[in-house]
């Protein structure tokens, strides 16, 4: 009896822990060094790691573009006066442009943390950094429009 209770408890803990970790990863919050590590654990050669990181960067760009498009769509459908819809759209566009500049500069800094490492390694640091920032912004954009009430179909 005691044994089965213990087993049950272990099971509950395992489920709770996996819920905690999946909640964290569902926010897509891998940081730059975790992204690099993931590619580094999967591949051995420098070229393969580089390809893996380039792929992660490209994927993150797709994720961000999709989140931006969905945000624009949600704002267009928003049950609100046109002037607020226009304002939100304009600000979203401005924020997207300014984000690109911030990303370039922050990731140039992140790459510079490689110091005298060879160019390939610096470039990998940059790619992982870009992927992290893109995913974080995509998540923010998703959350910001998640509460917007859509116009009624009869309108």
């Amino acid at each position, binding site marked *: 009896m005691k044994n089965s209770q*213990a087993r049950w408890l272990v099971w509950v803990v395992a489920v709770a*822990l996996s819920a905690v970790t999946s909640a964290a990863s569902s926010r897509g919050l891998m940081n730059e060094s975790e992204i690099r590590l993931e590619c580094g654990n999967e591949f051995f050669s420098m070229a393969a790691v580089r390809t893996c990181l380039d792929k992660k960067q490209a994927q993150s760009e797709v994720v961000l573009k999709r989140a931006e498009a969905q945000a624009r769509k949600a704002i267009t459908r928003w049950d609100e006066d046109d002037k607020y819809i226009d304002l939100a759209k304009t600000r979203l566009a401005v924020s997207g442009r300014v984000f690109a500049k*911030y990303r370039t500069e922050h990731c140039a800094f992140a790459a510079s943390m490689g110091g005298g490492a060879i160019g390939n390694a610096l470039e990998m640091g940059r790619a992982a950094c870009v992927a992290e920032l893109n995913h974080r912004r995509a998540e923010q954009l998703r959350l910001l429009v998640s509460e917007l009430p859509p116009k009624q179909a009869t309108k």
Partner: protein
Amino acid sequence: MNMRSVIFAATILCSVSASAAPPRAAQSEYAIRLACGNEFFSMADVRECLDKKEVESETNLKRAEANLLRAIAKWDIEPPYIAASKAKLAAARKSFAKYREDQCAYAKSVGGTAIGNALEMRRAACVAELNNQRAEQLRISAADSQFK
């Protein structure tokens, strides 16, 4: 293995994962607003709570920046690399401030016709989220093994 040791191990595991979670995943703008909204009832108190979170996040970010600058200054590498990193950090800091302003103006604008106080609360929560997130990124950079 008796029952008590299982419970003990479970408690430790849960507290470890719970305490590891907050600094890693900086709270979202929405979660920050929710935290203040759950704690306080009046609009004025919620507003004050969010203002406080914004101020705290600024302190958090300033501290992370200062620590990172200290780590870079002590970096065992040729001086030009140190100078280059410092210059890049300064440039990123400036463009972050601009991005934060524009992104949080956007966050505010999706509040639509809500009264001014509610819009301002969205902005404060957004600033707190971005500051805490950047602070976390800088902390990770400063903790890099090359500075040890």
